[in-house]
């Protein structure tokens, strides 16, 4: 059973981590645009391929990881993360460098994560939030650094108040959390500097 976790990792760790990181960096620098992470790593359910690639590119023994109940699941995702990245899992969301959210409807209040301090706003949690798709669901408008004027994006996050919470998150700038939305191998970043507005209809 454990052997199947051994095989599912990047083919070329160094270059795959680099290309995954560049996709994440470009996504963070250009919020609202969809970027694809390739080549993708296989990961145990409920982890999506882009979540696994992001984990392998950014997680290590310095980054405590918090998993929501869906991600914790039967323990496969946690075991895969510990084996492939060496990152410790934490049950305290306020201590987490990254948090993986498998069920956005059960997203805890953002204040339970680390928001950083006024002196060190970088000491905050980055949320990796898995959603259903970027092709349907409510549309929202994004403005702020990285965006030429404004951009409209779509995200099917099920029944959740994610976007209301993120709109409030932008108002605590420079404190706050940064979010990467994931759907299969596609990612879209909403850093704390981005201002969100739900579109009519």
């Amino acid at each position, binding site marked *: 059973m454990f052997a199947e976790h051994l095989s599912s990792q990047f083919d070329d*760790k*160094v*270059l795959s*981590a*680099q*290309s995954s*990181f*560049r996709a*994440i*960096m*470009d996504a*963070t*620098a*250009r919020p609202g645009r969809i970027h694809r992470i390739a080549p993708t790593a296989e990961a145990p359910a409920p982890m999506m391929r882009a979540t696994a690639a992001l984990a392998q*590119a*950014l*997680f*290590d023994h*310095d*980054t405590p990881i918090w998993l929501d109940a869906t991600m914790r699941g039967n323990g496969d995702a946690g075991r895969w993360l510990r084996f492939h990245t060496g990152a410790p899992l934490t049950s305290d969301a306020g201590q987490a*460098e990254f948090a993986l959210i498998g069920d956005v409807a059960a997203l805890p209040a953002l204040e339970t994560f680390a928001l950083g*301090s*006024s*002196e*060190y*706003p*970088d000491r*905050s949690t*980055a949320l990796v939030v898995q959603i259903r798709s970027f092709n349907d669901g409510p549309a929202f408008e994004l403005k*702020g*650094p*990285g*965006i*030429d*004027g404004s951009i409209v994006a779509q995200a099917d996050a099920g029944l959740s108040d994610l976007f209301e919470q993120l709109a409030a998150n932008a108002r605590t*700038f*420079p404190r706050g959390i*940064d979010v990467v939305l994931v759907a299969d191998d596609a990612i879209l970043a909403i*850093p*704390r*500097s981005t201002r969100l507005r739900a579109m009519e209809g």
Partner: protein
Amino acid sequence: MTAPVYNFAYLDEQTKRMIRRAILKAIAIPGYQVPFASREMPMPYGWGTGGVQVTAAILGPTDTLKVIDQGSDDTTNAISIRKFFAKTAGVSTTTSTADATVIQTRHRIPEAALSEGQVLVYQVPIPEPLRFLEPRETETRRMHALSEYGLMHVKLYEDIARFGHIATSYAYPVKVNGRYVMDPSPTPKFDNPKMDNCAALQLFGAGREKRIYAIPPYTTVVSLDFEDHPFARYRHEAPCALCGADDSYLDEIVTDDRGGRMFVCSDTDYCETRQASGHRGSERAAPHKKDHAHG
């Protein structure tokens, strides 16, 4: 004897992950200086160890790298860094601004407008704009936390009181996204307007001071000034002696011991590109060679 073997782009993977996480935080908080665990590099502090670490963390095999030092592709520092990455990462290098995907720079922003697919990496000696006004890190950090930037305006005002104008000519402080006052590294203030609403991502690395900061694309960057003493660019009032450009930043070159001098573009690629397309200045230019200055 076994030849030394390096990881791709020299740095080990754990170091790259640490720098990559700092870069993401820096982009998310434009203008804020993110502390990072700067490593010893095989070159001295002051030669661009911060910029080199940022470049090493982002560079991939399909990138094309350009390195400039004071606008020039063919100085020792620029050639050494270009060769370093050609050797340790196997990336292709160029002197052409338009062809580069990653441009590492010491103290200049290229004259040609940057595009969306490009990343500009600055080498930064002293990242804290308030450091010469307040030496204590605890205090400058508090000032950034509170957006308490009056001291910087006092410094610019003292320029006006003493010289009649804002005499700060390089490392001219800017405010990023209406929040953080940032040191643009010792670029001439001529370059400050190029940082505003730039299509490319701008990353800053300070190796000795262990800080990384960033300006995302399309971000407001305002040079600090006063209503009655607005920010003004400065350039020598002359055309380039080689290509005749009247819009580029110029270097002054002393040509003899009797006060003779000429002005030429600081951006060598800009100057050579103009000469190749037929522009001429008052002096005879060296013939343009296609692979001139490739390292």
